[in-house]
C-alpha cells in the first residue's frame, strides 16, 4: 500500500489513558493531535469534555474508552458511560468486552454488552477491545464475529494494560475474520514506525498509541534507511507465543502459547536455539 505521512497520521488515535495523567498531559495531547493531524485523541471519560473543548473547530475527533481497562462492569453501566461520553463530545467509543464471559462461552452476555454500548453511542462508531492477550485464536475469531454481529464498526486488539499488546498475528487473524468493511485497530506496544508498519501490513487501519509523534518522525527517517525498518525479522521476535510469560498469563493460556511454539513451522529454523 502507498503510505504517506498524512495517511499515516490519519490512522493514529493519539492516546493518553494512564490513571496518573492530569490535565496538562491532556492539553499537550490535544495540541499534538492538532499539530500532526491525527485522527482522534483517545482519553478516559473524565477528560472527554476538556478534550472536546480543546479540539473544537479542528478535524481531530475525541474518542472515549468505556468499561476500561478490565471490561468487567455491567453492560448498562458501560452504556451509560458511552451515553455520557457522547453527550460530552466523544465521537468514537472504544469499549472493552466482558473478557471472562467470552472465555466462558457466554456469548449472549458478550453481545448484550456490545449492543447496549452501540445503541448508546449512536450514530458514532464503536470499537470493541478484545484484549487479545487473554484469548486463544479461536476466542479471538469468536470475539470478532460477536462484535460485528452486535453492530461494532471496529475490532481492537488491546487496552495496553494487559499481559501484552498488539501482535501482527492477532491483527492478521482479526482482519481475516471481519473482512474489509470493518476496521481493525492495533493498540498496545505500538511505539515506533516499525511497529506501526508491521501492524498496517497485517491489516490494521487504525493504530492506538501514545507515540504518534515518534511514529511520524520514524516515518521520515525510514525513507533514508528503508531496510533498517522494513527488512523481514525473525518471526519469533514478534510472536505472542514467544512473548507469553507465566507470571502475566493464566497457566492454561501460557501452556496454549508454548504448545504453539513446539508445533511452529519456524521451530527448526529459529526457535530451537533461539537466543
Amino acid at each position, binding site marked *: 500500500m502507498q503510505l504517506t505521512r498524512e495517511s499515516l497520521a490519519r490512522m493514529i488515535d493519539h492516546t493518553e489513558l494512564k490513571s496518573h495523567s492530569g490535565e496538562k498531559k491532556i492539553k*499537550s495531547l490535544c*495540541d*499534538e493531535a492538532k*499539530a500532526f493531524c491525527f485522527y482522534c485523541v483517545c482519553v478516559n471519560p473524565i477528560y472527554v469534555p476538556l478534550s472536546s473543548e480543546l479540539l473544537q473547530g479542528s478535524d481531530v475527533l475525541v474518542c472515549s474508552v468505556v468499561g476500561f481497562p478490565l471490561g468487567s462492569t455491567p453492560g448498562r453501566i458501560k452504556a451509560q458511560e458511552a451515553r455520557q461520553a457522547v453527550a460530552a463530545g466523544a465521537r468514537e467509543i472504544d469499549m472493552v468486552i466482558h473478557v471472562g464471559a467470552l472465555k466462558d462461552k457466554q456469548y449472549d452476555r458478550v453481545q448484550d454488552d456490545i449492543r447496549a454500548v452501540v445503541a448508546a453511542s449512536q450514530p458514532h462508531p464503536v470499537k470493541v477491545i478484545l484484549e487479545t492477550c487473554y484469548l486463544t485464536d479461536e476466542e479471538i475469531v469468536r470475539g470478532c464475529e460477536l462484535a460485528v454481529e452486535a453492530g461494532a464498526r471496529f475490532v481492537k486488539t488491546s487496552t495496553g494494560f494487559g499481559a501484552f499488546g498488539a501482535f501482527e498475528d492477532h491483527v492478521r487473524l482479526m482482519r481475516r475474520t471481519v473482512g474489509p468493511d470493518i476496521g481493525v485497530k492495533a493498540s498496545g506496544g505500538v*511505539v*515506533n*514506525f*516499525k*511497529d506501526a508498519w508491521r501492524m498496517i501490513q497485517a491489516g490494521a487501519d487504525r493504530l492506538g498509541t*501514545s*507515540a504518534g*509523534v*515518534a511514529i*511520524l*518522525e*520514524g516515518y*521520515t*527517517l525510514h525513507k*533514508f*534507511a*528503508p*531496510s*533498517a*525498518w522494513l*527488512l523481514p*525479522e*525473525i518471526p519469533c*521476535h514478534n510472536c505472542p507465543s514467544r512473548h507469553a510469560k507465566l507470571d502475566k498469563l493464566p497457566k492454561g493460556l501460557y501452556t496454549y502459547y508454548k504448545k504453539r511454539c513446539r508445533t511452529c513451522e519456524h521451530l527448526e529454523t529459529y526457535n530451537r536455539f533461539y*537466543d
Partner: protein
Amino acid sequence: MHGWMGKIRKIDLSTGRQEDLEIDDDLRRRYLGGRGLGVKLYTELCDEKTDPLSPENALIFLTGPLTGAVLTGGRYQIVSRSPLTTTICDSSSGGTFGAALKRTGLDGLIITGKADQPRYLHVTDDGIEVKDAAHLWGKDTPATKRALLDETSSKASVASIGPAGENQVLFAAVMNDKDRAAGRGGLGAVMGSKNLKAVVVNGTQNVVVADPEGLGELSAFLDRLVDKNPVTGKSLQVLGTSVLVNVINAHGMYPTENFRRGVFNDAEGTSGEKIAETILKAKSACYRCPIACGRTTRTPNKAGEGPEYESVWAFGAQLLVSDLVSITEANYRCNELGLDTISCGNTIGCAMELSELGLLPEKISWGDAGRVRRLVEDIAYRRGFGGELALGSKRLSEKYQRPELSMQVKGLELPAYDPRGVQGQALSYATSNRGGCHMRAYVIGPEILGQPCFMDRFSTAGKAEIVVLLQDISACVDSLGLCRFLQFAMGVDTFKKMLNLVTGLDFTEEELITIGKRIYTLERLFNTKAGLTRKDDSLPPRFLNEKLEEGASRNRLVKLDEMLDPYYRLRGWDEDGVPREETVRELQI
C-alpha cells in the same frame, strides 16, 4: 543574522595577531557550524602533513546555530587533528561554555601558533586578550577555574586543561564549567602544545532568533517529547547514563577484563541504581537541559561530578574493580587532571593484561584499585611507567609486541559496549572517522534500546544502512550545537523545525541528512590523505576471532566483512574506502 553570531575570530598565539574570518552564507548552509564548519575550516587551514602537536596545527572551538537558542544548546565542539589517532577529530562538550562563547558575539575561535609562555585567552564583547597563565600552569582544572573566575568575572565560563594537557598526554581532555569534558582524542594535549592553559568567555550578547514566538510554542512541545521518551524522560533523568550498566551487562556485552569477558559479576554494585542508593547528592544539568543526566556525587573523601556510564566501566569492569567509591574517585581525579576516562581506563586495562602475561617491567594486577589511582596520577604527570601509558593503549601494546591486546580502533580506545553483542555498533566503531567511539553512530539505540526502532543485534541485515543514517544525523546534530541525547526523543523533522525557526531559513529534512553525509565524507577525505585505508576500518582481532564464553552474547563474533562493502557502497566510497570523485562532486565538498 539569525542563529549565527556572524563572526569567527582567528588568533595566532605565536604572533598575537588576530583577525575576523568571514563565513559566507553558502558555507554556513552547507556545514552549519560546530563539527561540520569546524572540519571544513580545519581542512582549509591544515593538511595531512600537519603535526598535531606543532604550532601549525589549528585548534578550533565552534558553536552551532542552535547553541544558546534552544534546549540543550550549551554545547560546543573542538576540532583539530588528534595526536592520539592522527585522524581528524572533533570533541564535544556540554555545560554552559558553548552558549557563553556565543554571548561574546563570536561563533567560534580558531587558535594557531604557540605562545612563548603559558597563556590564557579572555574573550569578551570587546575582543580577545591574551593573558599570562604562568601562575596557573600546574594547577588542576577546578583550581584553574576558581582562579580564573576570581581574575575575570564570576559570570564567566572556563574551558581549561589540567596537568595532563600541559604534559601532552595523548588522551588529555579539555574540561569546562563543572567537570564537563571535551574528552576524546587528546585535544587537551594540542592545547597544551600551544602553551594555552584556558579559554575564558564572558559576554552579554544574545542569539537573535528569527521567529521567537514560533520557537516559544515549539519549546513546550520539545519538552514533552523529551519527557515522553522512555530514555530521555525516565532512565537518564532518574539514573543518569549509568542506567546502562545493568542493561548492557544483562546483554552479555559489558566489557570486562580488557574485553575478555562480556559479563561483570559485580555490575549491580557499580550500577546507576547503586549510585542512586549510595553516593548521589543531586542531579545536574547542562545549559537549558530538561534531561539533567549529570550526577553530583559524594564519597567519604570527596565530592564531584559523575561517574557516568563510560567512566564507571573504564575504572570498574574493565579493570575488575568492584568498589564504587574507588571508581568514583578515579573519575574525579581524571576530571581534575584533565584526562579522558575512557582512554585512561582502557589503557590501564591493556597494561593489566600485558602484566598478567609477564610482559611488563612491573606488576599491575586486576582489581587493584589503589594501583589504578596512582597510575592515573602518574599518567597525567608522565611519571615512571605512567609515561608509557600516557601514549595510549596502541603504542603501549606495540612497544611490548602484543598490538592485538589494545582495544582500540585507529588508535582511539573503545568504550563500554563489546561489539560482539551488537553488529551495527561494531560497524560503527570500525568506520568511525575519529576511531573507537560510540558517538559517531550510537547503534546501541536500535540494537539494545529500541530507539528509533528495534533491530536484531546479532544480525548484519540492514546494519550498513542504519549506521550510515545515524552517522549522518549525528554529524548534523553535532553541527547544530545540540546534545546527542535529543536523538532519542526526536528526529530530523524536529531538528529541521528548530533550525528554521531560529535561522529563518528553509532547510529540509533531506538537506540536513545531506549535510551530515557531506561532513562525514569530508572527514574521510582528510583521513584518506593522511594514509588511512580499508585496513584501518577494522577492529581488534579479539572481536573477530575470540568468542565470548558466557552471558547473552556468548559464541558471537563480529561479522565485519559482511557489512563493510555494503557500507562503502552506500557511502559512495570505493572498495578501499576512498570517497569516489562523483560522490565528492555530488556532495559539493
